[in-house]
């Protein structure tokens, strides 16, 4: 079962990478596997499914045009880039 899973994963990785110009040969495979294991999955990146505006001004213009409400995060600080997460 384990061997089958490993084979299917290798097959998937090969197909996925074939179109991107990445080949998993000696030396690169371990790094690319580690890259994939460290990269957050879609569940952890859910905030990027939200419709972010670049600024409050932009949000208000779009809200009027699209007839939609605004969810405004107000940070009482000199810095706070909530979009990137470095806040």
């Amino acid at each position, binding site marked *: 079962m384990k061997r089958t899973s490993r084979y299917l994963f290798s097959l998937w990785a090969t197909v996925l990478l074939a179109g*991107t*110009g*990445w*080949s998993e*040969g*000696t*030396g*690169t495979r371990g*790094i*690319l596997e*580690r*890259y*994939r294991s*460290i*990269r*957050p999955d*879609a569940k*952890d*990146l*859910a*905030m*990027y*499914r*939200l*419709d*972010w*505006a670049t*600024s*409050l001004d*932009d*949000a*208000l213009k*779009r*809200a*009027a045009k*699209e*007839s*939609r*409400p*605004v*969810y*405004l*995060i*107000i*940070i*009482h*600080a*000199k*810095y*706070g*880039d*909530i*979009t*990137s*997460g*470095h*806040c």
Partner: protein
Amino acid sequence: MVRKLEPYIIASWHGHRNDTDIPAAVKAVWDEKFKAQRGRTPGRQSNVDIAILDSRGSLVHSFDAANHQQYGRRGRIESYTADELSRAASTLGLAKRPTKTPALKLPDLQGKQGVRVLVSLDDERMHAYRAPVVEVVPVEDGDWDHLAWPEEARRVSSSVLLPYLSQIYPPGVMERTNPTTKEVYRIKAVEGELELSPVAAKKGPRHAILRGEVRIVDEGPDDFGYKGTLEIVLAYRDGESTPHALRGYFDGLYPRSDRMHRDTRWLPLQAAIESIPE
């Protein structure tokens, strides 16, 4: 939670109460939040508030983002926020509005070449800080000349990767701020020698590996820094000497100062590094 936020356009704003250009909605929230409450002891407040505005920009509802009565209990802020959103939804008439699940759209540079850095801090005590940080950095002509195809292994200073590796620090780093300006100390340097070596391949795209130990140092006065392993695969097109794409990772430990427990915790700090467009 994401489903409840789908009808909204999301925006953030930051500033101080003595700023001259405070938007009307922010002023309305802060006027209410900070007004003197005669005969009442002020409750604990966070420095983050949520304002719900209608499509004309009028304030419909606001609340303190942290809900201090429940602060620290796992999942409580989420359920509290969901409850507050439900209150606003009925006022805005959102309950009747159908929504479709939007696609995941990571920050990018609208087709321009760049590097995306996805940073994760594994802080078991503060779950909010485990949310990944995603930063994008543009790549200009000549930026990758130092990474030209290596006919044989050679040394490369990690400082050439400063624009990308300087994004690798935890979210919400409150303990690393300038006490005077209140600004977060930026990453000023990356130290360490890397090895750039070609990967032997009989056919297909050419690849090289860039690897080594790096130390990331911020601009604070105490030479604060943290170390980790960096490994990146670089891809080169036939006939081109500079790489056109890269993928790799940083895997290190971040010394988080814990004032409450008066100790330093070494937390796994990792980053996936990838070129864009994909």
